[in-house]
């Protein structure tokens, strides 16, 4: 399809396991964002890529969280030694954002991965 694709849609893991979440952005979109979203609340910024460069990772809650986008397209968010507080929906968004623009750039979201840590 033409939209942002995230997989898996649902992931259940036991506490202490490692998980990997995948995001396939819209083709040609330069910017890619990862967010964590609690039920009924807005997205909380985790990290941001421009092409393959990770320009901002200030939102990653701990060093157990790691994101990569090695070829500037598909991105993976990895969480090591998962804990119960990691349970949330993880959203990926991409944006054309080829240059700075006063209007800002709209973000196109995938439907998220719902992560449950038991």
């Amino acid at each position, binding site marked *: 399809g033409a939209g942002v694709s995230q997989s898996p849609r649902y992931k259940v893991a036991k506490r202490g396991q490692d998980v990997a979440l995948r995001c396939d952005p819209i083709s040609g979109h330069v*910017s890619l964002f990862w*967010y964590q979203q609690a039920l009924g609340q*807005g997205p909380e*910024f985790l990290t941001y890529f421009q092409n393959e460069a990770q320009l901002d990772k200030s939102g990653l809650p701990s060093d157990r969280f790691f994101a990569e986008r090695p070829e500037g397209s598909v991105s993976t968010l990895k969480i090591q030694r998962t804990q119960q507080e990691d349970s949330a929906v993880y959203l990926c*968004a991409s*944006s054309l954002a080829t240059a700075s623009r006063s*209007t*800002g*750039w709209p973000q196109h*979201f995938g439907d998220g991965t719902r992560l449950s840590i038991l």
Partner: protein
Amino acid sequence: TQLLEQSPQFLSIQEGENLTVYCNSSSVFSSLQWYRQEPGEGPVLLVTVVTGGEVKKLKRLTFQFGDARKDSSLHITAAQPGDTGLYLCAGARRGNNRKLIWGLGTSLAVNP
């Protein structure tokens, strides 16, 4: 500290009523975007407002950007059950407008 405050956090109304959702900040934004998110899906862009005082209409939805570009409102006329969802505002700041600052959202339920 939340840079964008949305109010109310929750709203439950009957079909046909009008409502207004607010998005406020002490910071100036170069633009502000409104999104709607339905359960199990990602947010979808509704509108972008850019100019202070700007008003945009999308069918029964009216969006306004404050004169000082620090706040915005979303007014829905004659709400319908299909308007149910989480409404999010997100601001772009001059100098770093690829990354958006997000509000916590207003969860709207329109009851038939």
